[in-house]
């Protein structure tokens, strides 16, 4: 009797789908995929950072003769830099704490209470985030300057006092201006986390006799920890890197922060001091990294899964007459952070000059000049192209990275997570120089430099940390039971990914996409260093207009951007509503 060896055994032909699924479940493809992902992230983050590391250790930038030394780092560890650093941390901490409190309050009001007109309020609260800071800085300069600011004149007229009520050119002014951007940014994170929470846990707490406040403090908030901590970190780090607010409101009050010190050392030194700028950035990066480790430590080994296999519908708390108070709080924030500054911009856009509201200066010239400007339209087209492509690519990459780091036990996943964090920790204006050097010094045959691809790659790198954080927070809330249940019922890995993970996390994906898209629209540091003739983007055109004294035209473009925000947010919320109703 003859026997058949194992390789002689004939198998029935296997379907391609099954073959691919099996391949995906094997270890080799997984390692390959992980390596490819690590390589891609390394190119996006490690490569420009390595150029900067060289810059921090070398007396001259790449391509120039010089020597290696530590003088950049020695300059960092001096008393004046320590003072600058203390200012920076103080300002960022203050604005992050206040804006997080506000964001949690607004997130709760919008997603969990019966406050009237929540849909509209949700769009309105997020508006300040999308306005170029330079415009609101100008508007707040007009509103809150101690000499002739509108608020102070009104206060003096009403109270008879001779002392001004507010002074935006101060420490508080810097914090206030930053707060207007970080509150909506944090709100966008927090509101989705509130929405994705199964209220059964809160109901259980209430059933056991806990008060509303105690339930919020002991159940709701701790369950939101990943989203809140992630948002806190992102906002705090972004606060350390904030530039416009300290430049406009801090300089007159002699407040110097890390970014203005870096700006001075690159742009306003006799010979640009890249060594100090990059060394200072690396020291800050090290400190930020400690914060990230603290975040990992805080979240490690704890479960925050609130989206489980059990059906739920977000519970709405009936506030009774108090709902008008919560409504008033949201409206007040909207009036102060949007109506006041944007009202100034809107009004000013119809006059020849901001702040000079005379009949003989009424004009539509600014609208005519913007709408008839080919360069503006070309920049809009380029920005949209890069925004759509960049935001989509960034979110896909972020989703994959977040999936690997939160939903798998693959070795090396933490490395992937770290690589994705890195660009967020380096101040934008320094990282932009890293990209410039990195792309320029690639081998001659690789012609990224001087093309629109340089911008796209830089935008993806800059946006990846946010996309990863948004998606990680979303994945953290999804129970593993859901995936296991799907697989038990015969769904393939792809089907599970598509029908469970993507389906449940896509509202967060949409939020991340909008954040990334508008991040690209506003990005200036890398854009101005990497753009080429024909690939001008909106931020570069706005800079040109601003530098040419066309502040009113800049406002017109800013207002057009706000219209876009309305449109995007409306579509996004409609889709989420439709999607949530079919869950």
């Amino acid at each position, binding site marked *: 009797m003859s026997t058949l060896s194992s390789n002689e055994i004939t198998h029935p032909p296997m379907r391609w789908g099954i073959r691919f699924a099996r391949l995906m479940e094997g270890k080799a493809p997984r390692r390959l995929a992980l390596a490819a992902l690590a390589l891609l992230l390394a190119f996006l983050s490690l490569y420009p950072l390595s150029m900067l590391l060289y810059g921090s250790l070398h007396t001259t*930038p*790449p*391509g*120039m003769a010089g020597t290696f030394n530590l003088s950049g780092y020695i300059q960092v560890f001096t008393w004046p830099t320590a003072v600058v650093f203390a200012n920076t941390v103080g300002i960022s901490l203050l604005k992050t704490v206040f804006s997080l409190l506000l964001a949690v309050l607004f997130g709760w009001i919008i997603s969990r209470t019966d406050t009237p007109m929540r849909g509209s309020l949700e769009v309105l609260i997020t508006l300040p985030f999308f306005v170029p800071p330079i415009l609101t800085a*100008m508007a707040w*300069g*007009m509103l809150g*300057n101690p*000499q*002739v600011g509108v608020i102070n004149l009104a206060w003096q007229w009403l109270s008879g006092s001779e002392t001004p009520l507010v002074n935006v050119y101060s420490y508080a002014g810097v914090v206030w201006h930053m707060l207007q951007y970080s509150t909506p940014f944090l709100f966008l994170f927090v509101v989705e986390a509130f929405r994705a929470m199964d209220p059964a846990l809160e109901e259980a707490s209430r059933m056991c006799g806990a008060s509303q406040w105690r339930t919020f403090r002991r159940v709701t908030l701790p369950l939101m920890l990943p989203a809140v901590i992630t948002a806190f970190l992102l906002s705090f780090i972004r606060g350390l890197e904030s530039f416009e607010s300290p*430049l*406009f409101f801090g*300089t*007159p009050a*002699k407040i110097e922060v890390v970014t203005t010190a870096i700006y*001075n050392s*690159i*742009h*306003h*030194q*006799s*010979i*640009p001091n890249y060594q100090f700028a990059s060394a200072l950035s690396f020291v800050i990066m090290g400190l930020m990294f400690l914060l990230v480790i603290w975040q990992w430590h805080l979240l490690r080994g704890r479960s925050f899964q609130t989206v489980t296999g059990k059906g739920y519908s977000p519970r709405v708390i009936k506030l009774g007459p108090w709902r008008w108070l919560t409504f008033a709080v949201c409206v007040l924030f909207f009036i102060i952070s949007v109506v006041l500054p944007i009202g100034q911009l809107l009004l000013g856009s119809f006059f*020849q*000059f*901001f*702040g*000079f509201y005379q009949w003989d*200066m009424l004009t539509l010239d600014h609208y005519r000049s913007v709408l008839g400007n080919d*360069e503006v339209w070309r920049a809009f087209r380029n920005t949209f192209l890069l925004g759509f492509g960049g935001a989509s690519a960034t979110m896909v990459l972020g989703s994959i990275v977040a999936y690997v780091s939160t939903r798998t036990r693959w070795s090396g996943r933490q490395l992937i997570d770290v690589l994705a964090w890195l660009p967020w920790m380096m101040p934008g204006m320094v990282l932009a*120089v890293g990209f*410039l*050097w990195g792309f*320029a*010094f690639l081998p*001659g045959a690789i012609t990224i*430099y*001087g093309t629109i691809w340089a911008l796209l790659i830089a935008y993806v790198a800059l946006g990846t940390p946010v996309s990863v954080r948004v998606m990680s927070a979303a994945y953290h809330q999804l129970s593993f039971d859901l995936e296991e249940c799907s697989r038990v019922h015969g769904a393939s890995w792809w089907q599970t990914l598509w029908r469970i993970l993507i389906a449940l996390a896509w509202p967060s994906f949409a939020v991340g996409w909008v954040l990334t898209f508008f991040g690209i629209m506003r990005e200036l540091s890398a854009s*101005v*260093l990497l*753009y*080429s*003739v*024909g690939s001008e983007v909106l931020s*570069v*055109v706005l*800079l*040109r*207009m*601003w*530098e*040419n*004294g066309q*502040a009113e035209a800049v406002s017109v473009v800013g207002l057009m951007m706000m219209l876009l925000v309305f449109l995007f947010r409306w579509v996004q919320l409609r889709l989420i509503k439709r999607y949530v109703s079919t869950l």
Partner: protein
Amino acid sequence: MSRVLKWIVCAGWLVGSSATVSAQSADWTAVVDAAKKEGKVVVYSMALGAPYYAAVLKSFEAKYGIKVESLDLRASELAERVRTEQAAGRFLGDTEIITTTMIEEQLKTGDYVQKVGDIPNAANLREPFKTSDVSVPAYVQPMGILINTRLVKPEEEPKSWNDLNDPKWKGKILSDDMRPLGSGNTMFAVLQKKMGAPFNEQLAEQKPVFSRDMRNDARRVARGEYPIYVPQVFAFASDLKGLPVKVVIPQEGAPYAQMEFALLKNAAHPNAARLLINHFLEIDSQLLYANAWMLPVVKGAAERANDDAKAFANAKLMGMATLAERPAMMELARKLYQ
């Protein structure tokens, strides 16, 4: 006999010089032809799309049919981009328009620019402007004092830089930050040299408030936040007509920043670049700058400027900051304005 000799010498000189001119013009015709063949020129500029700059480029394109690609960047970004491209062997730019000190710095730190060669219109440069082997003056940005005409009575208007140190202006002067590199420090350096050290010491006692947004700062003065702003680049006030502000040209003169053309090493379109430089020195091109309250560098443009621009186009110049003095001046400003 001697008269005949004189005639012969004169005739010889005329023939000789006309031969030189015709040789030069023949050379230049070759440059123009080569430029047209190149078909394009890439300029790196700090003008950031200023309308007068765009108008000159447009007139060049119309006259020669050569496309101009202008990459507008801020000073430090422009310098770093040029340096990086040259170091990496990516020669994308042909020419640059930057400050005199930036060109000095490029010469000091690397090998980024090449000889410009003869530019015919450079013969029409007015005093004190001169070409060098590697640079050609393009235009000048002088600076003065901006006042709010509602807050400063005509009899109180400062006429001299010294008037800024009148005690009545203490705490009432808005200024571009004098410590970092920029217009504020240029003014500080020139006044230190021309008015003497006590001037800056007294000015520091006046406690000027620093800011870093020149365009918006002029508007802040117009709105009445401060009665005085220094240094006001004349050109930046030319578009504020209708607002209650006035630019004062101090009797001692105006500190200034000079913009110059340089030809980048390994430029892909060197002839088109030279032709553009020559076009910038045409009187009509310079007139566009003069009418924008800048100081033209060639003869014949200031005289033709609009009435409101004439004073600025003919302003007395006080001096410009130099590369050698810059670190010391920045250090001194930091010391005085701690």
